[in-house]
């Protein structure tokens, strides 16, 4: 299996690791795995799209170029109404955006925020139902992504994840 698929499976396993009351550490790691599953899915797809002619090593280096914070900014923009979209990038897209693409972008934002909380907010309390629901959300979003990933909008989205700052220059 791919890394992103393994991470999704691991997220679910960790959420269900204890037979009784789950340990917060298990739930926190599950949230982190869920986020990184989606992160690696998008980074892998983006590098495959942009670096299809590159060597394996060069494509791996390309994957390392994707930045978490920039990806969040981009994903947030794909959840917003068309009127608020970046003026330099909107002409590259066909509106309305596919709901599957919007849902995936929104889930990336949510998972990144949850991962931040899981890794850094010691006061946060996670519950099993919430974490399993995130895993379910991710499973559904991945299924939706598979139906739109070859669309022109999805290709622009993947490139945008890496190139937003450059593309935003007038």
């Amino acid at each position, binding site marked *: 299996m791919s890394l992103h698929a393994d991470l999704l499976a691991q997220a679910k396993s960790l959420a269900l690791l204890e037979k*009784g*009351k*789950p340990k917060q550490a298990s739930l926190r790691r599950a949230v982190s795995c869920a986020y990184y599953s989606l992160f690696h899915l998008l980074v892998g797809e983006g590098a495959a799209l942009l670096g299809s002619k590159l060597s394996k090593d060069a494509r791996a280096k390309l994957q390392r170029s994707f930045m978490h*914070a920039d990806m*969040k900014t981009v994903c*947030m923009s794909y*959840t*917003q*109404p068309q*009127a*608020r979209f970046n003026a330099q990038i909107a002409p590259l897209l066909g509106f309305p955006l596919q*709901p599957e693409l*919007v*849902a995936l972008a*929104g889930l990336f*934002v*949510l998972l*990144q*925020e949850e991962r*931040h*909380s899981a890794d*850094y907010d010691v006061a946060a*309390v996670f*519950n*099993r*139902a*919430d974490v*399993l*629901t995130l895993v*379910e*959300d991710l499973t*559904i979003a991945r299924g939706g992504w598979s139906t739109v990933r070859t669309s022109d909008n999805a290709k622009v989205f993947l490139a945008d994840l890496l190139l937003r700052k450059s593309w935003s220059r007038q």
Partner: protein
Amino acid sequence: MDEEKIILDLLKGMDLPRDVEKYDLKFSPDSTGTPSVYVNLHIANDIHPTKEKISRLSQARRAITSKLLASGLDNYPYVKLVTD
């Protein structure tokens, strides 16, 4: 209309699953400083939730998120499932 009222009206108009006991809102910047609203859906602390329950909660979170995003709020909406 203020965003709190918009969100509460939207939630009142939705058919939420019985698993959601109550909800509340918290306006606060997120981890990267983006103005945000946290829509907290309160659920029971069930350590063995059924697949059906997870499916209902997932559907509810996705439906609420979709409606809130479509409404063009200035605060970015995060829908969370919390226990008391």
